[in-house]
């Protein structure tokens, strides 16, 4: 008769910890109260005591294993006099290599499945821990990247950054086949001194989080979804950002738009509120050039032109085509270009140079009635403007309650380049342009 010793929780919130040290080995006899192991979390270290008497039949999680889930078996205790042959075929005697390299655990989902895929076969091994294989990539500078000499050489020839690759060799070592499969650029070395290239974080499987398999349809991640996930995760996590919100009265803008469209009718061009917003934003960026900026380790890049990226929702994601040097372009041209770019974005026919780059972004959810929102920065741009719906709202004018068409906009700023005062100055300039559109002509 044998029982499993489980990973204890050192605190009510602890989910996993490091098995720092074993004080016993296979075959040792322990009695209740004996210290058998030492467990570590990021906050504390604690000794684990045996609760029952018996013989340590097997150590299931080797010393030094990180991310051992609470309540996962860490050892097996036989309560009889002699250790019976292992009834459950755990990979107990295996070293960290075996345990870490169980099938299924290397999947990004970290799904706790180690079943044999063979038809009709019973799963013979169940997972000992949920931890992914030891990573080959260095998390920070100075961490050794385990890679074969040949993998290193091929990576150098292909200009690949090994730290961005996942190794499939023993102990997660990067071997030839890992670098041969990697496309150059897919894992290019980051810009000098730039933030460490990041991989999407390892998320728990849905099943682990209580959503049972089969209760949903799974849409595979396509390239765009992966890019969106990666870029926005990086941006939101790594860029210190803050929102600035302001209300704009747009009655004059709307009236002006009617006149402009009447004028442009013969040309077959129709200017939208969004086109006016693009134009005003571009002019404001010329007036407050510090807001038209990007952070780089070498310094702050102050852009010569206002290249305005406009977020376009398309099937399966979004894309940000760019109106280049919008400050130099007339409304008719902006309207024509924006319409063309949006149409081609929806059919995924944009050329890379039409959506890569840009110095400032505008995202407009006004058409959905959204009042206000704060977008995530589109790196390396220093700011992004979120445009809400224009709607009649009560306002106070000269001490009197009045009705005006009000539109709320929010500027999300990269604090490394756009400080609060700069952002505020830009919004001020933008507000004047929008509320009194005639000033755009100046």
């Amino acid at each position: 008769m044998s029982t499993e010793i489980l990973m204890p929780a050192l605190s009510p919130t602890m989910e996993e910890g490091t098995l720092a040290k074993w004080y016993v080995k296979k075959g040792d006899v322990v009695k209740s109260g004996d210290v058998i192991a030492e467990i570590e979390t990021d906050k504390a270290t604690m000794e684990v005591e045996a609760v029952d008497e018996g013989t340590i039949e097997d150590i299931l999680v080797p010393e030094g294993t990180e991310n051992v889930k609470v309540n996962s078996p860490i050892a097996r205790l036989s309560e009889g006099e002699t250790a019976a042959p292992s009834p459950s075929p755990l990979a107990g005697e295996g070293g960290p290599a075996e345990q870490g390299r169980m099938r299924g655990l290397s999947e990004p989902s970290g799904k706790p499945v180690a079943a044999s895929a063979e038809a009709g076969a019973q799963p013979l091994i169940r997972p000992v821990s949920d931890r992914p294989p030891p990573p080959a990539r260095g998390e920070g500078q100075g961490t050794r990247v385990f890679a074969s000499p040949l993998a290193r050489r091929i990576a150098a020839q292909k200009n690949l950054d090994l730290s961005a690759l996942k190794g499939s060799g023993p102990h997660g070592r990067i071997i030839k086949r890992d670098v041969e499969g990697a496309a150059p650029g897919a894992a290019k070395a980051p810009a000098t001194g730039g933030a460490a290239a990041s991989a999407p974080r390892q998320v728990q499987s849905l099943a682990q989080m209580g959503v049972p398999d089969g209760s949903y349809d799974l849409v595979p991640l396509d390239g765009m979804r992966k890019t969106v996930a990666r870029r926005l995760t990086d941006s939101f996590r790594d860029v210190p950002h803050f929102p600035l919100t302001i209300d704009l009265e747009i009655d004059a803008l709307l009236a002006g738009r009617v006149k402009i469209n009447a004028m442009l009718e013969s040309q077959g061009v129709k200017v939208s509120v969004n086109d006016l917003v693009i134009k005003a934003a571009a002019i404001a960026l010329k007036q407050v050039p510090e807001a038209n900026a990007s952070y780089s380790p070498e310094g702050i890049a102050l852009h010569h032109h206002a290249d305005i990226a406009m977020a376009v929702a398309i099937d399966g994601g979004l894309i940000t085509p760019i109106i280049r040097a919008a400050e130099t372009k007339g409304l008719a041209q902006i309207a024509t270009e924006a319409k063309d770019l949006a149409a081609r974005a929806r059919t995924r026919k944009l050329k890379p140079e039409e959506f890569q780059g840009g110095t400032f972004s505008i995202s407009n959810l006004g058409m959905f009635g959204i009042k206000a929102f704060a977008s995530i920065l589109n790196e390396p741009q220093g700011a992004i403007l979120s445009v809400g719906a224009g709607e009649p709202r009560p306002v106070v004018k000269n001490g009197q309650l009045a009705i005006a068409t009000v539109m709320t906009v929010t500027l999300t700023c990269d604090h490394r380049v756009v400080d609060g005062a700069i952002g505020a100055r830009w919004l001020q300039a933008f507000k004047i342009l929008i509320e009194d559109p005639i000033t755009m002509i100046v």
Partner: protein
Amino acid sequence: MADTFDLIVIGSGPGGYVTAIRASQLGLKTAIIEKEALGGVCLNWGCIPTKALLKTGEAYEQLSHLADYGIKVEKASFDFPGIIKRSRKVAAQLNSGVAFLMKKHKIEVVEGTARLEKGSPAPKVVVALKAGGARTLTAKHVILATGARARTIPAVGLEPDGDRIWTYREAMAPKSAPKSLIVIGSGAIGIEFASFYRALGADVTVIETLPRILPVEDEEVSATARKAFEKRGIKFRVGAQVEKVEKPKSGGVRITASGAQTSEVLEAEVAIVAVGIVGNVEDMGLESLGVKIDRTHVVTDNHGATGVPGLYAIGDVAGPPWLAHKASHEGVHCIEHIAGLVPSNLNAPIPGCTYSTPQIASVGITEAAAKEKGIAVKVGRFPFRVNGKAIASGETEGFVKTIFDEKTGALIGAHLIGGEVTEMIQGFALAMTLEATEAELIATVFPHPTMSEAMHEASLDAYGRVLHI
């Protein structure tokens, strides 16, 4: 005794018994079925007993050179039954060693002949017991490790008769040493027997269909080997086809071999058939289960799966190279895969060895194969005749040849001929498994004085940096 297991292994050669041990380590309840002797051909009738014979041959041959070492020997002779007895004793010792290992790992050994029947989740195994009766065993997984046997060609009379026409098996334990011998086939098995019997003084002729001996080896190795064997008195007929095998009443064998233009009649006391291997796939019910068989070998995927649920095949029966260590490697890979581990050494390079005098060892691809694949290569060579240890030992025959991928510097092949090269090849196998490039081989310190320094020099030579030439 319970008849239900996690795993049943059929065949206890180096593929089967190693697989069973690994399975036991992984906690699987395992049975192994053997119809003859634990350890299979390798241990009882192949690798091991031949090495015992070859050691004798080498030692005996050495006697004629002892004067070179300043030793005087008067009238050496050998006791043939004694030689065979020692070889059998070695095999017996290892056979009981396997029995001990099975016991130690709590693997149930079932002596008998296995036959498969439809079953779920894996085919049922019906064993006709050696002791009489039958036993039906079931398991979640069944691994075929039934090995292979010598190929024969009855059409031209190349069929062992246990008297004048032998396979490796008869050649291993004859009553007396033949005075003359024809070996048909110049692969490792043929060359080893040629080497052994020649060392004991037999008149040996080797017939090979292909244009060179040891056809799987690098061409330079084949050429050097041929010269070395001819120097010892072995005769070769390459590019020759056996047309007819006759057994004259007066005794011996008469073999008609035809070359491109000529036809020749060769006579000898006995002939050894060493023309390859056929897989042991018969009489096990494989056909009725729908197991795919291609030219006597079971077709499997990369992990040994046959396509029939729960049934796997590893080792010789699953195809070439027919080598014991390849069988063990495949078996371990297969069972680790079944157990849900990720065996990471799927494409480990498999070295090959021939234990003749001189020895031959190789790993990876030949220079010709690299060129055929369009790989630009850097080739290095170093002869033992300028290696200090080799000169001191009087073993100056042969060389080390290295082949590197010019583009990446990866070692892609190594080919050795000379004294004890079968003990050196693992260094190159390790380098290839670790994906070493020329930089690591050049940076490694090889001890002096050793024959292995030639491995270092051959690596240096590929990059124009050889030191001792």
